[in-house]
């Protein structure tokens, strides 16, 4: 099956991101294709490289980055939601005249159209949120 995944909450405060991650891993193990993982609302906060979570617990951002690299996944962060919450790539930093950018490796910033397109292209779009 060609699957799309939507992550609507940030790391730690809600378990949604963990569940989405575990679902993605299980789906890949079963041989499904993950067409795109789209991060919306506070989900964009999964994409900051500045988190320093406690050492005795999982590092959610790092897990996403590693999963992306291992399976060449398309992790997309919604630009509108990211702008609201302060998740920037280098391009956005320059465009918006900010003095820093913070996006983690493996994530790319793009428009809401990517979410709709995932809905069109995938057999199933699965949402993880509150």
């Amino acid at each position: 099956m060609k699957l799309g995944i939507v992550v609507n909450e940030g790391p730690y405060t809600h378990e949604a991101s963990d569940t989405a991650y575990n679902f993605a891993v299980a789906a890949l193990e079963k041989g499904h294709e993950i067409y795109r993982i789209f991060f919306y609302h506070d989900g964009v906060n999964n994409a900051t490289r500045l988190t320093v979570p406690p050492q005795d617990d999982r590092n959610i951002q790092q897990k996403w980055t590693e999963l992306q690299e291992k399976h060449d996944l398309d992790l997309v962060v919604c630009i509108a939601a990211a702008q609201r919450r302060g998740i920037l790539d280098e391009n956005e930093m320059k465009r918006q005249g900010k003095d820093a950018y913070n996006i983690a490796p493996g994530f790319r910033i793009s428009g809401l159209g990517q979410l709709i397109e995932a809905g069109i292209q995938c057999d199933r779009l699965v949402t993880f949120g509150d």
Partner: protein
Amino acid sequence: MSEGVKKFLYVNRKAPHGTIYALEALEVVLIGAAFEQDVELAFLDDGVFQLVKGWDTSDLGSKNFAPTYMALGDFEVTKVFVEKESLDERGLTADDLMELMYEDEDDDWAEKPSIRIVSREEMARIMAANDVILSF
């Protein structure tokens, strides 16, 4: 259903203020309109509050996005399903809701209401009949 067109259902379960889900969900609907899919909206649980008329956000200091619902007809949203049980549970009736309209191109552009009040059971059938469910 023509080639490449899917039935999209946007499910709204949260009140318009207190959280951002209502506003950001609307943003998806508006952008999604450009993709010319078959779009329906569903409002249930606290989501029905989004459609109550007479919003006054002047003391909130945040954006009043109520006018966006009135503009949905211009974005080819003609079917807005509102769950009856959710209204009843909140002491609301159809009279409390905004009058969302659309222009029917198959009927000389006659203005028609977009809101259809449906039962919880019908809502389940509506969800089952859609290809893509976006829930916020």
